[in-house]
């Protein structure tokens, strides 16, 4: 069975790679064949060349953006989970907090970014705050949804054995909620990188968003694409790491 699964997933990976190569080939051919100027669509090879040329500055910017996203992500996850646990422990707070959080969550996060930039300056702090805000709402809502999934009868059972509120939370609610929490965490990885980059575009001293914005102003579109590739490899790595943790440790779902 496992051998079958392996060959199946190997075939899927092969097909996926084939699809990626196909798209890259069509891209390369159309960029070269139609002689498209770089500002319309640079060829794949010239983007790879730009990646090598600007390797030093891109690597520095990538570290900057990755640090911002990761710091904001960790803060956002902790705040979101803590707030969700608090709200579940205090049922009275729920009817006020939950509609409010849903409403705030439907406001586009980027709308806050000018304000956060004015408050926290152009440095890393403003990006970390933005990422933390964006991530914490997603984690808060998915944690609440997860904590609510618990079966009423299981709560009654574990309480009949004399478990207190904290024990119910730790032994029953959190394990039940973990699959949903980590699913929210997985989605948030990509979001954290995007929010960091968008905020950098508005004002920063370094980072991929800053590089992209500068390159747009200089009409250097090979560099824009190179930065896009670096940015997506950061979010892919981040996404892959959380998915790995999910498969490894949340085995009971």
């Amino acid at each position, binding site marked *: 069975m496992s051998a079958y699964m392996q060959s199946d997933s190997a075939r899927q990976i092969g*097909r*996926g790679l084939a699809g990626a190569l196909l798209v890259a080939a069509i891209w390369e051919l159309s960029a070269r064949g139609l002689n498209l100027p770089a500002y319309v669509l640079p060829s794949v090879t010239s983007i790879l060349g730009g990646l090598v040329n600007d390797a030093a500055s891109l690597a520095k910017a990538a570290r900057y953006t990755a640090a911002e996203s990761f710091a904001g992500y960790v803060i956002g996850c902790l705040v979101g989970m803590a707030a969700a646990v608090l709200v579940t422990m205090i049922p009275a707070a729920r009817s006020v907090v939950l509609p409010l959080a849903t409403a705030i969550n439907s406001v586009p996060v*980027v709308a806050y970014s*000018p*304000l956060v930039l*004015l408050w926290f300056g152009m440095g890393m702090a403003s990006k970390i705050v933005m990422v933390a805000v964006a991530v914490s709402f997603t984690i808060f809502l998915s944690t609440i949804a997860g904590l609510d999934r618990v079966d009423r009868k299981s709560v009654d059972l574990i309480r009949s054995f004399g478990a207190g509120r904290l024990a119910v939370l730790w032994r029953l609610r959190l394990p039940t909620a973990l699959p949903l929490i980590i699913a929210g965490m997985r989605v948030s990885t*990509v979001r954290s990188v995007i929010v960091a980059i*968008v905020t950098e575009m508005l004002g920063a001293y370094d980072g991929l968003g800053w590089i992209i914005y500068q390159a747009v102003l200089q009409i250097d579109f090979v560099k824009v*694409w190179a930065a896009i590739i670096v940015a997506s490899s950061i979010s892919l790595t981040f996404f892959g790491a959380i998915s790995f943790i999910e498969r490894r440790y949340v085995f009971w779902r």
Partner: protein
Amino acid sequence: MTGVSTSAATLPVASTGRVHAAVKPVLWLALGLLAIEVLVMALEIRPYYLPRPSAIAANIMATPGAYLAGLWRTFLETALGFVAGSLFGVLMAVIFHRWVTLRELFFPLFVVSQTIPVIAFGAVVVLWFGNTLFAKAVISFYISFLPVTVNTLLGFSSVDPRQVQLMRSFGANDVQILRRLYLPAALPQLFVALKLASSLALVGAIVGEWFGDTTGLGVLLLQAMYNENVVGIWATIVVSACLGMGLYSLVSLAERKIVFWGGEQ
């Protein structure tokens, strides 16, 4: 359970309860705004950090035309991108469902493209299509179609194969099976994605405007930021919030009307 509550809601007797449910959040909101107003005045917080809600309202009322024009423009971009993205998303899901080879070839690419900070494309897209409404709609479209495809496929996979066999044995063709079985089965999941897509589309439109435009909420945000006009930023945030919540509740309303049997999520 859901059936009972929906039928109860349609009774005229329950209408006072409905009015009450609609008024309650508004009351809370008014109370909250009043509390902020009093707090800001009592603690003498500088407008740079938090302007009084009444100052924000006054700012909007002073030049309602600019905000209305921005709201309308951003709404058009978002709506165009969202509708096109949703339709395209469902279409891609149907295609990927029908032709497994295509799915195996290109679906991984789709998922990878989801991890690309799409906003980074904003500059390229604006260059391709010019500083037009269409360019921003394209960004909204690109951001919103993927969750729709993913969730529709997820919904399709929840269909019991025995139901398909049953319909086939009665002589139903592919189109009929799609319309009567797969699409309805995918609806609850689809609406989860649509709610997400509506807010993503709005983000796409606002950020798209940053790459150059003359009207729109994103432009208002940028202008207010460059002038360090905090009251203006807040005013634009409030207007964007109204738009975001409006879109979200529109989709939720459609969900309640269309998926009357209730989603599992």
